[in-house]
């Protein structure tokens, strides 16, 4: 038993040695053959690693934004159709809540003199929103409590609006008509600074006004959608029941008046989307691998034909069909595997570069390496099988007569 094991081990080593010698002997051809597999694996690794890295960083930025926030959407009851400013005050004063930002949006016509644009997105904001999105105002001032309480007709506009309506002018303290009502421009904001999920999902607004003013424009006093920022030491798990009891009381214990959501569901959607994407890209890249595999098969078949005499001689000297098959199989295995290893290294390099360029954190995924190396090894065996079998079936006398 031990003897046989040792014998087959030495046979294996011998085969590996012979294969390596043979590959080294046909350096150029081997290199060209390996190229196919290499490119395939490079593509697979680069795509999968990059997609994974990018999606990880997107998900983690979602998570970091979403961490400590809950969204509250209110459908209300007949008695109470939404949250009033006092209710927001109440929520803000709760122990578990750091602050709330209502989101009140409307689309309206904006004009100045003879210039106008319709369908402009206008968002109502509160001071807390500005404290969360500190860097958003590039000129002028934020909206403050006085604006809220006084229902002031003042606004901040983004660069695009500035260019449309105030080209070559200083817009500050100028008047802009929103839904026919005069608003004083008090600041300029930069949309690209708004990285909130809400902005990402709904598109960023063009004009910001006090949320109380926005409510008035909407002809309502009800806030129906808001983001709750949790205080230190609270998370969605601990805060939700506390909030629920407060809101239940507010809505007189009627059912289905509101819904509290956290970012987890969004995150999982995101994850399944990227894994689908990775699978799709991986599928495309596997076609490249398939082509590489056919290249290997072609080379191995040529090699078998060329080495007919060698095969015949080895059989004449006592090589069993199985041993001949093993030799060729190991050769195609080594060829393909080396292509896979090189491709994996290059693919990781490419992915590193792409991640750098896109500002995503690069991580080496073990799965990708196992996939690249394992797949190329598999390709070597699958596509080496037929040529190796052909070699093993050669009749020694036919092979020797080729001389």
């Amino acid at each position: 038993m031990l003897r046989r094991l040792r014998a087959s081990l030495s046979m294996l080593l011998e085969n590996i040695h012979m294969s390596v010698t043979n590959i080294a002997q046909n350096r150029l051809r081997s290199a060209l053959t390996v190229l196919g597999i290499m490119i395939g694996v490079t593509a697979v690794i680069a795509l999968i690693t990059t997609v994974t890295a990018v999606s990880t960083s997107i998900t983690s930025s979602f998570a970091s934004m979403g961490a400590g926030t809950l969204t509250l959407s209110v459908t209300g009851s007949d008695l109470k159709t939404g949250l009033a400013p006092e209710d927001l005050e109440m929520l803000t004063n709760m122990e578990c809540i750091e602050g709330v930002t209502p989101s009140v949006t409307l689309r309206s016509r904006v004009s100045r003199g003879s210039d106008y644009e319709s369908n402009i997105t206008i968002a109502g904001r509160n001071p807390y929103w500005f404290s969360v999105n500190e860097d958003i105002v590039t000129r002028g001032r934020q909206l403050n409590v006085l604006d809220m309480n006084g229902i002031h007709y003042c606004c901040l506009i983004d660069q695009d609006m500035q260019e449309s309506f105030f080209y070559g002018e200083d817009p500050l303290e100028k008047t802009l008509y929103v839904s026919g009502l005069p608003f004083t421009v008090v600041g300029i904001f930069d949309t690209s600074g708004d990285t909130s999920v809400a902005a990402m999902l709904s598109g960023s607004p063009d004009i910001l006004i006090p949320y109380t003013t926005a409510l008035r424009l909407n002809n309502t006093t009800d806030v129906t959608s808001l983001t709750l920022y949790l205080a230190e030491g609270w998370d969605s798990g601990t805060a939700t029941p506390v909030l629920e009891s407060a809101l239940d009381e507010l809505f007189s214990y009627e059912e289905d008046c509101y819904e509290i959501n956290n970012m987890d569901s969004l995150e999982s959607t995101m994850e399944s989307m990227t894994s689908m994407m990775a699978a799709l890209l991986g599928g495309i890249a596997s076609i490249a691998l398939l082509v590489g595999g056919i290249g290997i098969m072609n080379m191995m078949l040529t090699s078998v034909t060329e080495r007919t005499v060698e095969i015949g001689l080895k059989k004449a000297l006592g090589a069993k069909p199985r041993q001949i098959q093993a030799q060729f199989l190991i050769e195609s295995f080594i060829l393909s595997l080396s292509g896979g290893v090189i491709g994996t290294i290059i693919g990781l390099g490419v992915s590193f570069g792409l991640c750098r360029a896109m500002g995503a954190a690069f991580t080496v995924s073990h799965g990708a390496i196992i996939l690249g190396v394992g797949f190329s090894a598999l390709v070597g065996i699958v596509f080496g099988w037929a040529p190796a079998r052909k070699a093993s079936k050669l009749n020694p006398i036919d092979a020797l007569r080729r001389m």
Partner: protein
Amino acid sequence: MEARPNFFAMTDLRKSYPLGDERLEVLHGISLTLEKGEYLSVLGPSGSGKSTLINIIGCLDTATSGDYILNGQRIEDMDEDDLAWIRNREIGFIFQNSQLLPRLDAQKNVELPLIYAGVPGRERARRAREMLERVGLSDRMEHYPSQLSGGQQQRVAIARALVTRPTLLLADEPTGALDQKTGRQVMELFQQLNEEGNTIIMITHDLNIAKHARRVVYIVDGEITEPEGGPEYA
């Protein structure tokens, strides 16, 4: 001499090749027995079927019909793996043109049959070197075939055939590609090997070479005849 048909016995062995619609019969019923320790040469003109016969003896080819028993084993009953085993252990084949693998040096070429016999590396190297010394090539172990003369290559091939200590040593025109002097050296080596107890079958079309053997048979048009009284009367 008492016959021991179990060591080597061929009865009514035929070999034919398909030729168009007909068959070309190359061997017409060969019967031949051999004893351990014999040194037989098969003499015949070109195209008479010598190579065909020795390839069948060496289990590289199979007969169309007839019986062939080697060392108690019926060759017709063997499968591919058994045949590989017999080629490895029972037969040492020396080809007309030494047939060395050009990418392996002399020692590695000689080791080749031992690899398939599953002999571990160090033991293999020892036996290969021993055999190369035996054929007088102790100073050429690391030479590649292209760096060896024809006679030296043939001696490497002989060492390779001997290294598994086969039951039967077969040689198809072993001096065919050699000049007279090196041919004689090879013949001397064969004689020594036979004296050491090796059983040898040698193919040749050269009477002078055939006479080195202790027994000669003729093969003409696929039929064997044995001259009365041994090689001297051939």
